[in-house]
């Protein structure tokens, strides 16, 4: 750590080194934490280790944010939860992922969806050749017809523009509309936990704000959210708890409000304060050797 950010009392919550911090795995499970629990997660793409020893919790009904630069392992974390690592020749090599008390690590993506965890992939990835209505129908393939009809009603209430564009090809929608469709499509499965991968990427500020508001409304309706986002200000405003990944390791974690107030997070992720000249940001796996040991905020 550089500057004051690594010392207790500097710019926000008290910091402990990883050695003295209470590991989340050791904490007793409570009803609050019966959501998503990731313990000691390690992921590899062949010989490349993309995640190491990651602990993360998303309690039921909560919003958690994962911040980090490109190559930090944010998308890999979501792939590990949603069961899509195999599409990228990746695999979980250590650790566990549980949701609602049941293990989901190693489960195929379709099974993870049936357990209530649905991911909105980065870059929207709507089915461009299909209409908006067909995209929504694709999102409901894992649920019975009656539930699908109710979910469709909820989605169209959330995104009225999708009803107007129902018969238009999804590939012809604007970026913002495509993001709404991607989120709406995921909601069609009636998820208990929504994984959002960079939902505001490439969107105009006004549309990004609208997406943020939508995430709030989705959460208010009872869906937990794990939000991966480079727009740290937005993510920290939305989340109750936040995690910072750096080159595959958890560098910081704690209540989002406290992280937002900390000097290091403000300087490195919110672009406020003096630049950190000691350590480059977002330099990817290859610079792992240059990193210092990560510190952890204790909540």
């Amino acid at each position, binding site marked *: 750590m550089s500057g004051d950010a690594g010392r207790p009392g500097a710019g926000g919550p008290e910091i402990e080194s990883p050695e003295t911090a209470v590991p989340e795995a050791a904490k007793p499970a409570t009803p609050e934490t019966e959501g998503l629990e990731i313990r000691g997660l390690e992921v590899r793409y062949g010989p490349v280790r993309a995640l190491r020893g990651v602990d993360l919790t998303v309690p039921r009904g909560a919003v958690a944010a994962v911040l980090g630069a490109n190559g930090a392992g944010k998308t890999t974390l979501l792939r590990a939860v949603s069961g*899509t690592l195999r599409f990228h020749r990746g695999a979980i090599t250590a650790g566990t992922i549980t949701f609602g008390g049941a293990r989901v690590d190693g489960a195929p993506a379709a099974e993870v969806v*049936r357990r209530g965890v*649905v991911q909105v992939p980065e870059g929207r990835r709507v089915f461009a*050749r*299909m209409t908006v209505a067909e995209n929504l129908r694709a999102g409901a*393939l894992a*649920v019975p017809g009656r539930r699908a009809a109710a979910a469709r009603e909820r989605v169209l209430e959330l995104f009225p523009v999708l009803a107007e564009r129902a018969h238009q090809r999804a*590939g012809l929608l604007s970026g913002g509309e495509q993001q709404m469709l991607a989120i709406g499509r*995921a909601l069609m499965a009636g998820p208990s936990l929504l994984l959002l991968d960079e939902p505001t990427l490439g969107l105009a500020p006004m549309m990004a704000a609208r997406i943020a508001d939508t995430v709030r409304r989705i959460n208010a309706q009872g869906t937990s959210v794990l939000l991966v986002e480079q727009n740290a200000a937005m993510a920290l405003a939305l989340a109750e708890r936040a995690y910072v990944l750096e080159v595959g390791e958890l560098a910081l974690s704690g209540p989002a409000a406290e992280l937002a107030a900390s000097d290091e997070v403000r300087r490195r992720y919110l672009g406020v304060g003096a630049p950190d000249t000691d350590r480059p940001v977002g330099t990817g796996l290859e610079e792992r050797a240059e990193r210092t040991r990560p510190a952890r905020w204790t909540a």
Partner: protein
Amino acid sequence: MAVFLELLVNGISVGAVYALIALGFVVIFKATEVVNFTHASLLLAGGYVIARLHPLVGFWAALAAGIAAAALVGALVEFLILRRAHVGSRGVLAIVTIGVDILLTTELTRQIGTEVLALGDPWGDRVLRLGPVTVAETRVVALAVAAALIAAFLLAFKFTGWGVAMRATAEDAETAALMGVRLGRVSLGAWAVAGALAAVAALFLCVFPTPGLDRGTTAAAMKAFPAAILGGLDSTTGALAGGLIVGVTETLISGYQSELAFLGRGIGDAAPFLVMIVILLLRPSGLFGTKEPVRV
């Protein structure tokens, strides 16, 4: 004029059978984006089972067994070979299907030997006379069955969950999995359906006026390949249009062979491939193939 009309009607009915085979290509391509060269041997397998069983159990039971057998062979090819072939490129998977086709065809033609096997259909060599036009009953039945099956698939792709899952998988398998689509089931189902369609096509390729099932049947089946390509490999409507174009072209050119002698012998067999090349030069995605929508 009567000759032309007769050739046209026959061409349409042969084309309907090619369309059925092309539909098998399309179903697999829609679900997996793999070009399936095993199709001709699935067709031969279905036809062979019908031919061997009809003297024992009667035509309709043999037909049902042939359809089930071809569906099973298709499902087994997917489950035992393609699912386990962990290759990144779909082009490589297409080559794997060529290898499987050679293996299956070699064994089936060894079983058939030099025989010409009858399929025991109930229509025999009866013909219908519609004014000046004479057409085999088998051709009329083929046209009706093919039209009904193609219409059913068109509707299924558009309106059923199975169809939506197949189209979603073809477009983006990872995202389809994120929607809860079980990719293995989609792929297995597509291969089984394609096998069943191939067996139905085998029946109509091998009944009157064709003498029966023999080693050359696979060559006839491969004419459906240009039909699928020129129609657009991911289009059900394209399979129908492509089949009809190939059937009518082949029948007309073969029928007017003497007038077209300057083009050389065998031009009827080559014509579907020439038409395919011309259409692909004009429309690279085929007549009805999907172009990626691009927002400008």
